[in-house]
């Protein structure tokens, strides 16, 4: 990581000095006057709530997030956050977060814990069966037969909460599966 003298001086005055340079993860300077975050790893992120796109600094220690605050270097929010943005810490540290694959059998009244392997194989099998059973290769419309190659047996909803790259992958997967019923929050 290249550090110019000017930026180094500027950076050393900041909690997230190193972040100000590249945004990538690095260790806060040991001479940081901000003892609160001394020795912590820092990285940048953008708020997941509304679409203003406020910058945030995430402080971590031993693989745990210990603090999240507004990024003072960010040109839009300049360090400020609203009530929701200020609470992002509790998304990362929350006992209500899902941490296991859960499965509910037909007619059951409870979840069962499953492995990713089991769930993936089962989901893939169900998706394939649904696609194969409901695949519309051709459709007759106003007396003409057209090739439509569409899977009318499943719908996919989401995902404004996904990153762009994830949206791209999801869309690519959906279209390869022939899914026409693909919608998300932007419509509502």
């Amino acid at each position, binding site marked *: 990581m290249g550090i110019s003298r000017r930026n180094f001086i500027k950076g050393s005055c900041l909690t997230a000095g190193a972040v100000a340079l590249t945004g*990538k993860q690095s260790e806060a300077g040991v001479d940081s006057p901000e003892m609160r975050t001394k020795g912590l790893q820092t990285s940048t992120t953008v708020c997941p709530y509304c679409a203003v*796109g406020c910058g945030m600094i995430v402080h971590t220690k031993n693989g745990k997030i210990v603090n999240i605050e507004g990024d003072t270097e960010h040109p839009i929010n300049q360090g400020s956050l609203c009530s929701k943005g200020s609470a992002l810490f509790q998304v990362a540290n929350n006992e209500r977060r*899902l941490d296991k694959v859960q499965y509910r059998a037909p007619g059951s009244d409870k979840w069962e814990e499953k492995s990713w392997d089991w769930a993936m194989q089962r989901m893939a099998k169900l998706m394939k069966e649904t696609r194969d059973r409901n695949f519309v290769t051709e459709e007759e419309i106003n007396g003409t037969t*057209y090739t439509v190659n*569409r899977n009318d047996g*499943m719908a996919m909803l*989401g995902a404004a909460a996904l*990153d762009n790259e994830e949206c791209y992958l999801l869309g690519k997967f959906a279209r390869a599966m022939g899914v026409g019923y693909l919608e998300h929050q932007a419509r509502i």
Partner: protein
Amino acid sequence: MTNHWIDIQHADVIVCIGSNPAENHPVSFKYVEKAMDNGAKLISVDPRYTRTSSKADIYAQLRPGTDIAFMGGLINYLLTNDLIQKEYVVHYTNAAFLVSEDFDFNDGLFSGYDPENFSYNKESWAYQLNDNGMPKRDDTLEHPRSVYQLMKKHYARYTPEKVCEITGTEIQSYMEVARTIASTHKADKVATVMYAMGTTQHTYGTQNVRSYAMLQLLLGNIGMAGGGINALRGESNVQGSTDYAILYHILPGYLKVPTYDNVNLAAYNEKWTPKTNDPQSANWWSNTPKYMTSLLKAYWGEAATEQNDFCYDYLPKRSGNYSYIRLMERLQNGGFEGMVFMGTNPIVGGPDVNAIASGMDKLKWLVAVDLWETESSVFWKRPGVDPKSIDTEVFLLPAASSVEKEGSISNSGRWTQWRYKAVNPPGHAESDAFIVHQWVTHLKKLYQEDGVFPEPIVDLAWNYGDGHEPDIDLVARECNGRFTRDVVIKGKAFKKGEQVPSFAYLQADGSTTSGNWLYCNSYTEEGNMMQRRGKEDPTGMGFYPNWAWCWPVNRRVLYNRASVDLQGRPWNPKKPIISWNSMTRKWEGDVPDGGWVPMNEDETKSPFIMIPEGYGRLFAAGLADGPLPEHYEPMESPVANAMTSQQCNPAVAIPGKINNSGKYPYVGTTYRVSEHWQAGAMTRNLPWLVELVPDMFVEISEELAESKSLKNGDMVTISSERGQIEARVLVTERIKPLRVQGKLVEQVGMPWHFGFNGLATGGTANTLTAAVGCANTTIPEFKAFLCNIEKGGINS
């Protein structure tokens, strides 16, 4: 947004209509206040007196769903008093264009109406063409068939008195709004419009937006610093997820999803590539074939060749409208075996949620991917339902939060910013990218063995490394696109495998790939532009061109060539976005909207480059429900349409479960609060936020409280034709009854964040809303419906 958040500081007048940024986009208000510090006037137009209203210079109350009447009156005011930016209007909009003699409007119906199909034959909405196939025009704007004169006639009916009778606005405030907005018709004055779902969630939502855009075009405010038409998007990446087309009708970069009759790639290109006879029109969508082939190459890689139409047959073809409401109707009819929910909660966020939930009972399988146990993922144990009676197999997959994975998101101002992974997700949680990757990997294996039409899956290009997760860096590179062979384009040589520098270099011959042409330039040979953190602001205008990256091609303000006069000089020299340097013969400032010479020179192009004719559309023939916005009442309304005998938008079929009988006397509307977000899972599970707003509530006026003997905190039951919920009543002077056509109309407001599951629970407002949508987009009419309120909870 045509502009971006920081740019709001340059406005002279800020119009918040159908939005409440002080509450819902709080940090954006930094720039509203900055503009106000410099003398800008803030106008808040809203049914409720909101946090934004409390900061406003002028507050104008309007009844939910009457935006077009409100705007129609303003357009009338501008045209009657000649308070438009005439040079801009003549040269940059279609005001001077002549419209077919067959076009007509009569008692709420435009010409070509087909009552059986609730639709229009739009043939008569066309321009008159000259011998060269170009629209005829009259630059004096006096021709009776000119767009200007037709518009003037159409909106002459919207007198201030008539408007206020419909909207319920006090006429003094209305006239103050009109005068204040009109003050920006001067070339160097500008107003911005900040709108959100209060605008769009109506059966004529698109026309609401259109009416704002028309106002801005007449005032010469589009393309200007501090101007434009700015949608305040509600989710951090809903701009990106739209750009990436998680929607039934578009492919990445707003390419059209092929319809059944686009039988091959040539037919697709013929149908969806717009044409123009005007040599002065850039007609940017003429590049459609290049973008489409590059997408197909990104999807199916080596398998996509010129000989096999680049695997065009692999794409599903649609033969109908598969939008959210239609999709949910199909669900209720048992049309789906399975559904996948990626971080979405339809039985809180959708319209008429009881109907959606009972539709879900018919699924064979459901996969929900989320951070939390949402209402939708536990639909099988919702109140009043016996789980034993529901045969759905349900998978709930634990997902990574935004700080537990890496990737980009696009904000409302189109800034695409990178987020880094700070920690691993908890327990067995995984990123959405991992989950999609696993599905693809498993299905590829299965379809290699057998299956119906396996090719699209087997041949799918899926090369994102050998790691536990797909390599997001490789995905981001693919979204941008690369060259598939050594080529020379526009005199520049490129090597196979190099990143494409911008969409201007994409090709229709298979020599380029691009997963999203609009993002081509986001990841070049110079690196990942979305990661940039340069703080330089060379123009002092707040563009921050080296901070992250913004589509298209890092242009910070769209239509910016409309911000200059015909010589290329900024209309407002004090706040230039771009200006033409006649010495260097180059544009300076922001990335210009196409680099062509100014309008007074040969080889120029008109500034509205995405429109085939090149001019801003005051008259828009492409819409489903008319070329000029016209006032109709919401599907459910307490009054008759005072403008015409067409009660509702004639281009929307009247659905079931609508009740205008008087049984439900109050106008209901929904909204959000600062402390909660959308369908609630991301906030109702956070103790800090739950402490701030723990309960579902309904806001009612002091007058209604008195007539119903209700006091603050009382439990009430709110009912509509769709269902009923209970909530605590919040009696407030922020909501006032409106005087509409001589009648006092009470309105009630509710947040829509609550549901039966989570740390904080409460009645779901969307139990009350109707599954009826906009004629153009089918967005549900969440913002205006009829309901009743009675004292006591549901079981009292």
